[in-house]
Every structure is written in C-alpha cells, then in structure tokens.
C-alpha cells in the first residue's frame, strides 16, 4: 500500500508539472498581456514599458516560463498584476473561505438529497413516484443554469422577498463590524467542522458497546454534547449576528446549487443500488426475513455507496475552483469569480495560482479515492 502511494505521489508530481506548463502556455496564448490595461494616451510609452518590465512581461515567453516554474518550485506563486503588489497567496486566501463555505454546504446538501432519493428510487423501481422524481431531477440537472439561478433570485429574493438578492453580506450591517468577513467565515467553517467531527465520533463510539441502551446513551449524549458545544460557542459570540447574515445570504445559492446538482448523485445512487439489489446476499437477506428498510439501508445502500463516494471526494476537490456562474450571478466573491476576472484582466499569476490549486487538490483527491476504496471494499488490494 505504502509503495503504491509513493509511486502515485511521484506520478502525481510529474503530472502536476505538466499541468502547470499547459496552464502557463494556454493562458499566455491569449492575445495581448496585462500591460494592455495601461494603453492610455496619458501614459508615455516609456512608462508602459516600465510597467511591463515590472511584471516581467518584457521577457521572452520561455524566460517567463522558467522564472515562473522556478518560483513555483520554491512555493512562490508571485504577485497579482491587477492587485499589485499583493501576493497571489494573499488574494487566494481572501477568496478561499467564501467559496469553501458555499460549495461545501451545497455539495453536502446535494449529496445527502441525491443519495437518499437515489436509494428510494431504486427500491421503488417502476412506480409513478420514481418516474416523477427522476423526471424532475433530470430537468433540474439539465436546466440552463444561469437562467435557473436568475429565476430563483427573481422568485425567492425579488418576488417573495425571503432572502437577499445577492452578495454574501449586508454592507450596512457590517460597516462597524470589529472583524472582517473572513474571520466570521473561518469561525463558521471551523465550528461546523468540529460539529461534524463530534457527530461522527458519537456515531462511531456508539457502535462499540454491545448493550443497546449504552449505544443509545453514547449516541444521543454525543450528539447533544456536540450541539451544546456548538451553541455554546455561537450564542454568546459577538460574531453571531454577522454569521447569521452570511448564512441568510448563502441560503439561496446553496439551495440553487443543491437543486441542480442532486439529480446527478441521485441517478448514480439509483444505478448502483439497482446493481446491488441483484446480488445474492440481498436475496439471502430477504430470505432471512429482514425488514425491507433494513435490507435497503444496511445491506444495499452501503454497498452502493462506492461510486457515490468517488464522485463526492472528487467533487470536493473541485469545490475550490468555485462556481464561476454561481459566484457571478449571486455576486459571491469567491474563487470562481476571481478566476473569471483574472483571466479577463490577464492577471496570469492569479489565474494560474487558482487553477493550480484546483489541479493539486484534484490529484490529491484521486489518491484519497484510491485509498478509500481499500477501506470501503475489502476485496480491493493494490500490488
């Protein structure tokens, strides 16, 4: 196993270098460069040349490439042209929590919905319920997303006035805030992560005792304690008002994203479940007289989880890339919007930095999936 991971890491590193090279040359293939922003009759030619030189744009492409790769290997992603002299890392760090927050919640919600509905669909195959849900899911999955997002904004924000139209906060509430939005994002992310860990540990620990009463005690005690700690952090916190403001703004984009994405998961789960339900051990379970729900949830669904897990882990990697359309339509300034603007402005270091992060995480996710397979399916062994 360790040898396998070692080999994969080496392969991954080489692949990452090829990926960076391709990125660099693809982005540089655009006509013009960032110094075009200074095509202003009031700026003398010499000054434009100085600006180009400051950003290294006066160098031949091969030299720019070597310089850039040299810096990358030293962990230096460079400085943003459009936000000079801020480092690329600083710009990405500003946007990352916002995207991570939005897309993690949306992804989890869509996978939860998709998995739950998928297994029910497979179980009730052939009924009108299956046809209705599948049809609805496919329509949402194939809908023209920018249009759908605008319709959602119009209906829920403009017409019903339930949620804000766009942005991730209400400026007038934040103007005297004693901390930045990213501080609040960090608090939300960490507290939710700890809550999730707490709930997971409770579930894991509750399986250890043989006694049913002890299992329940540990399970509900752990759940209660996790939520209590969560609330103990937030209720007295001066960040609560600001966190709820962010949550309020996040409801519509998360809901919209989940609606569009859940159908894919649902169809994967349904297909996988249908295959699993044909297995002999399911027949055996039925023959033993187990309750249908137990067969569905304990025997079939768990084994149908493998492709869904793969899709989920790989999907998490691409969360960082953000949703270019989502972030633009909902005016949510995250990684997707940053990528779009940096490409439009030919802010090459930021564009490469953003995409490199997605690429690196995608490669890591592939290794994680490979390793996860071993744990999820004991039949799999890597030589």
């Amino acid at each position: 196993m360790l040898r396998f991971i070692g080999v994969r890491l080496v392969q991954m590193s080489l692949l990452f270098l090829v990926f960076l090279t391709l990125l660099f040359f693809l982005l540089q293939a655009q006509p013009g460069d960032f110094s075009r922003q200074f095509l202003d009759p009031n700026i003398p030619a010499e000054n434009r040349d100085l600006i180009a030189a400051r950003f290294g744009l006066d160098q031949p492409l091969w030299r720019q490439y070597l310089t850039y790769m040299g810096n990358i290997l030293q962990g230096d992603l460079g400085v943003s042209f459009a936000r000079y002299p801020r480092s690329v890392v600083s710009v990405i760090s500003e946007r990352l929590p916002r995207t991570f927050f939005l897309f993690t919640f949306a992804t989890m919600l869509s996978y939860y919905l998709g998995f739950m509905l998928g297994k029910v669909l497979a179980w009730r195959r052939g009924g009108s319920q299956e046809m209705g849900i599948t049809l609805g899911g496919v329509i949402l999955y194939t809908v023209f997303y920018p249009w759908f997002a605008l319709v959602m904004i119009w209906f829920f924000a403009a017409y019903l006035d339930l949620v804000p139209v766009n942005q991730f906060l209400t400026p007038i509430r934040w103007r005297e805030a004693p901390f930045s939005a990213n501080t609040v994002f960090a608090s939300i992310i960490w507290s939710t992560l700890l809550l999730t860990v707490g709930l997971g540990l409770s579930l894991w620990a509750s399986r250890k005792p043989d006694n049913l009463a002890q299992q329940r005690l540990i399970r509900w005690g752990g759940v209660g304690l996790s939520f209590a700690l969560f609330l103990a952090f937030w209720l007295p916190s001066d960040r609560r008002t600001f966190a709820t403001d962010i949550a309020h703004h996040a409801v519509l984009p998360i809901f919209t994203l989940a609606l569009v994405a859940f159908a894919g998961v649902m169809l994967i789960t349904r297909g996988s479940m249908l295959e699993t339900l044909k297995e002999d051990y399911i027949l055996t379970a039925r023959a033993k007289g187990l309750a249908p729900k137990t067969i569905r949830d304990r025997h079939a669904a768990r084994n149908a989880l493998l492709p869904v897990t793969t899709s989920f882990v790989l999907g998490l990697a691409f969360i960082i890339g953000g949703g270019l359309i989502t972030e633009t339509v909902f005016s949510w300034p995250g990684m997707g919007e940053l990528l779009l603007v940096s490409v439009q402005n030919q802010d090459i270091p930021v564009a490469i930095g953003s995409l490199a992060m997605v690429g690196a995480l995608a490669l890591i996710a592939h290794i994680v999936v490979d390793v996860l397979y071993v744990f999820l399916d004991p039949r799999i062994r890597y030589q």
Partner: protein
Amino acid sequence: MRSLRKRGGWLALLAALALVAAACSSDDTADTTATTADGGTGNTTTTADGGTTDPDPGGAGGTYQTALTADLTTDNYWSYLDTEASAYNGFVLGQSHPALYTLSIPNFLVVPVLASGEPPETVQEGDVWTATIPLREGMRWSDGEAVDANDFVFTGEVAQEFALGSNWLTYWPEQVTGVEAIDDYTVKITFTEDQPGLSIYQNGVAQSPIMPEHHWASVVEEARGSDDPKAALYAASGLGEPSAGTNVFNRWEQGAFASITANPDYYYSGTKYTTYADLSWTQSNGSDVDETYYGAGGGEVLSEYTDGPFVDEIIYSEYGSQDAAYLAFQEGDVDYVFNPSGIPTGRREELRSIEGLEFAINPSEGFRYMAFNLRKAPMSDPAFRQAFAYVIDKEFVTGSVLGGAALPIYSLVPEANAAWYTDEVNKWGFGLTEGERFQAAVQVLTDAGYTWDVTPEQVVDDDGNVVDNAFIDGEGMRQPDGTAVPEIELLTPGPGLDPLRSTFATWIGQWGERLGVPMDVNPTDFNALQDKTFPPQTAESVLEWDLYMLGWGGGDPSLPCTSHQAFFGADQDSVTGGGFNTPGYNDAEFEALSEEFDLATDLTTARSLCADMEKNISENLPYIVLFSTPITDAWRSTVEFPVTDVLGGLNGYPNGWPGQVLVSE
C-alpha cells in the same frame, strides 16, 4: 425506531432554519435607516433655477448606498494613481486628497483649492522657469494637522524619487525639475529651460493630489530601505490615512463593500460654487472664501451648488457583474450604480418602468472612430479617405439604424465641452442625400485618377431620371498607378462586445463595396484587435492592418487637445515612437500647431490652436470620427445630485459627487 441519521437530518434542518430565522430577525444595533439633517423631510440644494433652501453640510444626512460594477483593487492612494488606476478605485478614493488647483464643474476651468488665487505666471530665473504659489492657510487634514507646502513638496519628491508612473508621471513629468517650500504656505516649482505650457503647469503639476506627509513619511522611509521601494509603498494600506477632502476612507471588506465617511472639518464645507453664462466662476462661503475667477461674475447662472459633505457615510457595494448591480438597484438595495459606461441599452427601458427613479442623459467625452493605415496604399491617398468620409452617412446609421442609441459626431472634442469645441471642421457630406454623397465620393476618386472596369454610378431609369437610392456597384477598381485596389480589411469589435461599432462597420463595408473597394469587414476579438493595431509595433507588423474601428474615452476635458497630440503627433508613431499614432500620421502643419500648443501659456491661445488641430484632422482624415454614445444614469428619487447635466454623466467629474450628494428618507 427512527434512525439516528434521519433524526440528525431533521436536527440539521432545524439548525439551518434557526440560523436563517436569526438572520432574518431585525437587529437594532446593525440596521441603519437613512435620515436627513432636517428631520427626514429632505434637504434641497440651491440650483440654477433658484432652489429654496441651502443644505446643511457636515455629514448628518444619512447613508448613501451605491453599487460598483467591478471590484475595488486598492485602498492605497499612491497605487491608485499608478498601477491600480481604475475608475472604480477613483469613485471611492478620489475625493480625499486636495490639490493646489482643480477643475471647476461643469466647465472644467482651473480653479484654486489649496492655492490662494489663480495660478501665478511662471518667471525665468537664469536657465530655468519657476512658479511661486502662495497657499491658503486654515486647511487641515481630518486628524487636525495643517495642510501646507511641506505636504506638496513631500508628494512631489516621493513621486519623482520612487519613479511613480501613470498618473503620477502626468503630474510630475521630467519637465518639473524641483519643488521646494519657501515657507509653510508658499511653494516654488522649478521647470526646465523651456517655459512650461498648460499641460505641464496649470493642468499638470498644479493639479497633483497632495499626500499627508505626517502620515506617509514613516512608510516612505521604510520603503526606501526595502528591495523594491515602490512595491513597499504600494503595499501599505490606506486605511487610517487622514483626508483633506469631503470624505475619509473608512472601511474595506474586500470583494464586498467599501465605505467612506463625511469629513466634518472639510475646508470648503458650505461653500457655494456658481458658474455664470460668461464662464466666470465664483466660490463663496460667506466668510473667508469669496473669490471670482475667469470674469467678474454675475449675470445668468449656468449652475450653482453647495459643497458638503451632506451624508454621514457612503457605502460602495462591490458586485461581480453589471447584472447583479442593477438587480440590487431595482430591488432598492442601492441608490445608484457606478458604471462608467452608463446604463446598458437593454436595461434602460426596464428601469424606466420602475417608480421612484430619476434619469439623466449626458453626452460622453469619448468617441468611436475608424482609423486608416496611412503607411499603405490606397489608405495613404487623401482622396481615398475623403471618398469614405463622403459615403459614411453617420446620421443615417445612428438615427435610422441604431435608433438614436448613438450620436453622430465630426470632431474629437465633444460639443458639450463648449469651451474647446469648434464647429468649423470639415463635415464631409453632411446634409447631402445618399445619392449626392455617393456622387461626391466617386468624383473625388475619379479626380484623383482611380479607374474601374465597371464605374460606380446611380441607376438611371428609361426616362433618363436618376433613381433614388439605386446604385450600380463599382468593379475592378484600380489605383492612379494602374494597380488593382487590394481587398481592404476593416477590423471591428464583434457585435457581442459592441453592436454599435459592428453595425457601423457593416454599413461602411457596404458603402465601400458600392464604390468598388473590395471590403472585408472582420469582427475581431478586442484584445486581438488591440494587439494588431496598438503599440508596440514594428515596421513589418504595422502593415498587417488596413482599417480598424475602436474608441477613445477618458481624455482631459480641460485640455482636450493633448489627446490630439497623442493620437496624431509624429513623435507618437506606434512604430517609431511607441505611441498611439496608429495611422502613422505625419503632417507638418499639425506638428507646428502641436508645438505651439505645448508652449501655450494661456487658455485663449490654447483653444485657438486646439481648434486648428481639429480642423487639420478633419481635413486630412487619419481618423474618421464616427459617433459617441450618450451616458444614461438613473438614481433613486431620494437622492439629489447638485448638477445632473455634466459631460461624461454623473459617474464622471467629480467621481459621482460624494461630497455634494444628498439623500432623504
């Protein structure tokens, strides 16, 4: 028994609902309602038509919420005028720093701010020229420090020592060789051996923003010791920097919003500015400021407004797209959208159906044009260019085809810039019918020696009468030397980027074909188009284009012919000078006018020379100026701007009126 997972799901759902409910609940400490200084009834500003009540300045008038259609990229004023020069940064930061002089609104005349009185004449001292400018006392930064000559000197020294670029270079060009404080309230500027013209002195260094030395001195000192002083200077945050303008920069939540607050100690707070029909201009606050420039004052009032600030705070929300910004505007989240291009055509009618909005349509200072590559035949032939000037019917395209979305123009200086505009340019074909334009163009080409296999002409019916708007296209067109006219490529932005230019190009292509010119109208990616036509170019690469269509904007309305020099000066040739003379225009008369313009030290001379430069361009046609687009602005009726008729729209000068705008409940 219900499974834990199911119960956990419900709990999660409940928790999410609780968060939403908490977010939706009112928060007394956070919500702010816009109120007015006079108790919510709304202030009124004095206007040209004799408005009623003077507003109360001092910033007690609520919150003005606006939208930016692009992100703010810096809060550092040094950087904003160099690498981060953008209109959006200007909206937020633009009104915080004083200058010796600024431009009056709406006539763009140089008027004093920190300086006391009009710009003194430069005097020759040995080999150099100097200007000694007295400053007014009593102006203070928002932290209480005096604004004085040392701040101005500090600014100039840093700009030149750190070789700050872009706008700083315009303010502190190499012709300014020194600056010193004679005393706390007198500065002396030294120029090179050539007497500085308006662009170097009155419209250059005299309008340089002044930075507070007591705030920046330590940053500058630290930057000097770093590996990259300029980067170190630009990396410093501008938060906490004192202001001597109407507003103080307050907060920046990156990607979300920025806010500026009223500067209650603003020197000119409560000062009334009046522009009269004879262009004279007064500023008066009833006590220590009572001055008149460019005339005696009095007579018909063109505009009148009072300086604030009148609102406590201005919030600039950053939106990822124009659509998102206008959606927020429609929903009442913001009072005004900052968009340098004005409201997009498709959205205007939609906004007009919303109650409680007011609109203004203003001329743009920019223009769209078609450029000829004068380095190649037949574009190098004036007759060829004149033929195109004749057949291009701007009134027809802008009026009948584009439905008034654009305005036909004949000069680079817009008509709305009355002080500099001249009507005495050659308006080729203006007032002629389509047939007459066609005949005039064919005649010009024939006189110059062009020939055709099939001569272009108007259709004549059986009775020998000329049929209106029916033509026989020319074919086999040959140049005076007998060689065939090659296919002429017209590069234009595609309809996705600019449908107006794209439409114009299509018509120009048709009119060219009618004359017998083989035309290839090529919609091109904007960056690719710039790459092909703009500097840097080589002697070979510059021959790769024939005609292109682009636009210019953002010139200096107080000295507009500096743009003419940049676009047509021989030293600005895109090949030899790396400048914006893309056509390769090199005309002795224009060069002489340009040289005189540089040396002009008074407005009357400069305006006369500028008019002559306009005439020269309209005769020789390196560009055919085509059209401009009016700027449409909309704002909530709870907002009141001091002046709404201004060149470039409300986004323009002075950055959306942050110091003069009023809001009511």
